[in-house]
């Protein structure tokens, strides 16, 4: 009898708080988006599942003694996002960017979304009940970098409490790139601009691909050491792939290792989706600012391309400017799709990959600035 009572008192039904119940629904929503809508399933599925597990009453899966508590150390110590970044580096082909280096500037311009939404977060402090510190604002702004590991790395350093909301926003908006970007791109370009065909790219040699990651690292060491954990691991992965002599390490970095870390990272991020941290008015602010950040980044990239066309002979199709936000390779695909709509013979995919991967570098640089200047 006592046992039965104690059993009943140990059920989830007896112990549920409304916050936990709501956060589990958020977890299920993320699973739905991942599985049925195809929103970045590799990340959102583990994140959603982590959200469910960590909000189970009594079980304490995200508290000391629970598996998610220990996995979270991989984020807290900055290990998981950097290993993911190494794997992404190994999967990245800088060829298109090296063939047309000036398109890197598009990847620079698109980072304006980061700083605009940082300002936006500070401006939101005018609304009663919202209080974002400068650290919070910086962590929110990085959503505009459209790069998951960078966002998680920066948020874990500057605003660990917001980590869950920021990661969810970053990956959700990346999945929404095909919806968010096209109206902005159409509004800012003329039909003629969208028809611009770009020059055939030259072939990039293996030596250039080997030297580039090292050059990138050196530049980052000289100018912005605070960005070197991110850029360094990215360059390591890229070098392992480009050099061709450590094929087995490169393959492992971009397959098994990144897969294992992705499962752990997703679950750990999900474990930060607690009612306490997520069910705040500020989460709505974060989601709104994230959307704004993507929109402004997209617009900045397109406008930059149009400016560059004023000063250059070889024309750039401004659609590829939108790919500068990173969100590899969806943003480049969007540029390609809109290009084909205006001109069925205009394949922009490879041309858009240049600003696309430059956007990854750009947001890592922006992350370095935030990490070094925001105390």
């Amino acid at each position, binding site marked *: 009898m006592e046992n039965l009572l104690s059993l009943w008192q140990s059920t989830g039904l007896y112990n549920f708080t409304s916050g936990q119940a709501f956060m589990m629904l958020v977890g299920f929503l993320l699973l739905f988006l991942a599985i049925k809508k195809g929103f970045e399933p590799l990340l959102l599925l583990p994140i959603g599942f982590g959200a469910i597990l960590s909000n189970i009453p009594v079980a304490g899966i995200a508290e000391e003694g629970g598996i998610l508590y220990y996995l979270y150390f991989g984020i807290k110590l900055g290990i998981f996002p950097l290993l993911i970044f190494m794997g992404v580096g190994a999967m990245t082909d800088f060829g298109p960017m*090296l063939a047309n*280096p*000036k398109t*890197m*500037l598009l*990847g*620079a*311009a698109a*980072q*304006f979304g*980061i*700083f*605009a939404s*940082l*300002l936006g977060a*500070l*401006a939101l*402090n*005018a609304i009663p009940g919202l209080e974002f510190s*400068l650290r919070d*604002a*910086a962590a929110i702004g990085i959503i505009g970098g459209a790069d998951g590991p960078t966002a998680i790395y920066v948020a874990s350093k500057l605003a660990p409490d917001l980590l869950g909301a920021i990661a969810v926003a970053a990956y959700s908006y990346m999945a929404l790139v095909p919806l968010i970007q096209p109206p902005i791109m159409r509004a800012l370009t003329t039909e003629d601009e969208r028809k611009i065909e770009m020059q055939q790219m030259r072939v*990039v*040699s*293996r*030596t*250039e691909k080997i*030297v*580039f990651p090292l*050059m*990138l690292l050196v*530049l*980052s060491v000289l*100018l*912005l050491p605070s960005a070197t954990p991110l850029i360094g691991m990215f360059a390591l992965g890229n070098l392992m792939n480009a050099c061709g002599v450590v094929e087995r390490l490169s393959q492992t970095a971009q397959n098994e290792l990144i897969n294992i870390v992705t499962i752990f990272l997703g679950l750990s991020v999900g474990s930060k989706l607690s009612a306490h941290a997520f069910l705040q008015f500020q989460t709505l602010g974060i989601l709104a600012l994230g959307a704004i950040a993507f929109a402004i980044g997209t617009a900045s990239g397109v406008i930059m391309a149009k400016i560059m066309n004023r000063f250059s002979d070889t024309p750039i199709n401004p659609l590829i400017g939108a790919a500068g936000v990173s969100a590899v390779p969806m943003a480049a695909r969007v540029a390609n799709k809109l290009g084909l709509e205006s001109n069925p013979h205009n394949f922009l995919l490879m041309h858009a990959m240049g600003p696309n991967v*430059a956007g990854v*570098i*750009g947001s890592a*640089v*922006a992350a*370095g*600035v*935030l990490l070094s*200047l*925001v105390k």
Partner: protein
Amino acid sequence: MAEMMSSGVELMFAGMGIVFLFLTMLVYAVNIMSTLIQRFFPDVPVSGISTSLSTGIDKSVIAAIAAAVHQHRRQHK
């Protein structure tokens, strides 16, 4: 709060400044690098592309399969 906004604006200028400085320098560096490499260390054209085209599978794949088969044989003989 006004103070924080001004920090934010300053951060924006510093940040976008650095991002553009960084990527502009990278553009120049890449241009210099590519020129130097194309002049002094041109890649030896890879022979065997024809093989690749004719068979539909390139040598490295064949090598990989051969290695796998050899590996299996060695372990199961």
